[in-house]
């Protein structure tokens, strides 16, 4: 290679070069080894009656029992319902809060760069730490939330947040909103800043008030960013493991057991890895559909 001369014209439309393949090779090999191969193992396991995955033993006979069991299991449909509820509630709250904070700190005022930093700060708090914070705020005996609710007269005796199904769901949702809204805020702020000031200036000249500017300029210009962000937030809730697992473990009475939690519980709680893989594969199919949806929403970015 040393001293060799290359007549590589990168501007040419058909740029093919062996270097392109060589550069790609490490990524292909590594992705094949740590993502694609495991995915195949997962699919394979889901068609076997396996307790603990052992790859050094001959595979068990092919069976669709895991899937039959899955689709007839009330736990599975319960997990789907919990996941859906969580996605709808947390996504809407994250988007409202994220959009609101982004609009707020997009105003001109002194110290706004500091305000922008603060408003999205929960993004930088690891999920497990957010769980520690909210587990204590919602502590049944000495938690702040019970005290606030009691002093305001909302309740007359303390709520046992982690043994009541509805209350536990509310705690999980609150924690996820707090952890999730900053991402929406950051994305929306970036979207807002990419709208040229001229649009607003022109609208002002034409006599549009603040509300009209929001509806006719901000809204349509922000829509693509908000669409992609919404899907990313939904996928995050869909996949999330640590917040729910550490906060409630999926309980009480499976009230916070999403598909992710159910997969993990079956695999590493009950050691039914074949069954768990079947849940995981169904989860994956839903994810792929969502990913496709996202790509069709944002074609210009691909």
């Amino acid at each position: 290679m040393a001293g060799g001369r290359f007549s590589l014209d990168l501007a040419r439309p058909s740029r093919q070069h062996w270097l392109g393949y060589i550069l790609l090779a490490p990524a292909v090999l590594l992705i094949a080894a740590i993502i694609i191969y495991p995915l195949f193992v997962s699919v394979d396991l889901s068609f076997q009656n396996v307790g603990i995955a052992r790859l050094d033993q001959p595979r068990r006979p092919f069976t669709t029992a895991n899937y039959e069991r899955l689709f007839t299991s009330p736990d599975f449909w319960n997990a789907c319902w919990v996941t859906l509820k969580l996605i709808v509630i947390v996504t809407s709250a994250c988007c409202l809060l994220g959009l609101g904070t982004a609009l707020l700190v997009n105003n001109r005022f002194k110290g706004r760069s500091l305000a922008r930093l603060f408003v999205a700060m929960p993004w930088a708090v690891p999920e497990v730490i957010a769980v520690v914070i909210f587990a204590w705020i919602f502590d049944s005996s000495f938690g702040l939330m019970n005290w606030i609710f009691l002093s305001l007269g909302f309740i007359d005796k303390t709520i046992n947040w982690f043994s009541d199904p509805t209350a536990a769901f509310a705690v999980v949702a609150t924690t996820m909103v707090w952890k999730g809204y900053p991402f929406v805020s950051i994305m929306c702020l970036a979207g807002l800043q990419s709208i040229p000031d001229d649009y607003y200036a022109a609208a002002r000249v034409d006599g549009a008030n603040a509300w009209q500017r929001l509806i006719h300029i901000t809204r349509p210009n922000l829509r693509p960013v908000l669409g992609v962000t919404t899907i990313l937030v939904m996928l995050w809730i869909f996949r999330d493991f640590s917040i729910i697992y550490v906060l409630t473990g999926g309980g009480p009475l499976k009230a916070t057991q999403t598909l992710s939690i159910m997969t993990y519980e079956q695999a590493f709680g009950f050691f039914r890895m074949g069954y768990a893989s079947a849940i995981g594969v169904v989860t994956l199919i839903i994810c792929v559909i969502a990913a496709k949806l996202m790509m069709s929403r944002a074609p210009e970015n691909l």
Partner: protein
Amino acid sequence: MRQSPLARLFIYASVILTCAVLLFPIYWLVVTALSQPDQLRQLPPKFWPDEPRWSVFGKILEERPILLWLGNSALAALGAVTISMVVSVLAGYSLSRFRVRGGQSLGLFILTAKMLPATLLVIPLFGIFRMTGLIGSLWSIILAHATLIIPFTTWMLKGYFDTIPRELEQAAMVDGCSPWGALVRVILPVSAPGLAATALYGFVLSWSDYAYARTFLTNAQGNWTANLGITTMKGEYISNWADISAAAILVALPILAIYLFLERYLVGGLTAGSEK
């Protein structure tokens, strides 16, 4: 463009109120850590401890191997980021500059891989790592974290490379640089901010992981990461919230510091990576 004083007052009031509400949980974590343990079992709660107990951090560092956990987290993150960066710099450059057969579908696959649930991959990886004897070793999470990081970093870097004009490499090659030389001597120095942002983002992803560490390292106490260590403290029979909070602050501090001082890089990477 002048705002009326009333409008300005309204904006300041809303900003301060919003930040106060949204950041209260972080404030409460600090207050809890600095309170005397018996004070936490009193109502009404105190919103600032009478005598802030700064010694709690020294105490918790002595009682728990938090430095070990932080060190493990850092090692795992550095390992995973190093592997991911080397691999994705090359792949991102290739996807950005060369027309490679299958490159498009690889790009699409990587995009989809960002959405894979960890709970799905964790089962086969558990089997694979058991067979290869990696369970309990830091290598298990270094490799697993790479599955989290590579899809992000490859797309982020491709995005950065796309913004660099091709004429730059052409000029270098006219001057006698090989394509490889152009990458190393021209493109990489120019994209240093992008590389930093990408690496930081990967670091945050790795540092925040809990699922993989919980699965692969639970029985290897010496290799616990910070997040795993913290959750074992929470699971104890009597939770000492002051101690847990102090430990939580120490664990959250590195990422918070990165965020507060390098926010520009991190957020730039976040938005660039997510639009792709």
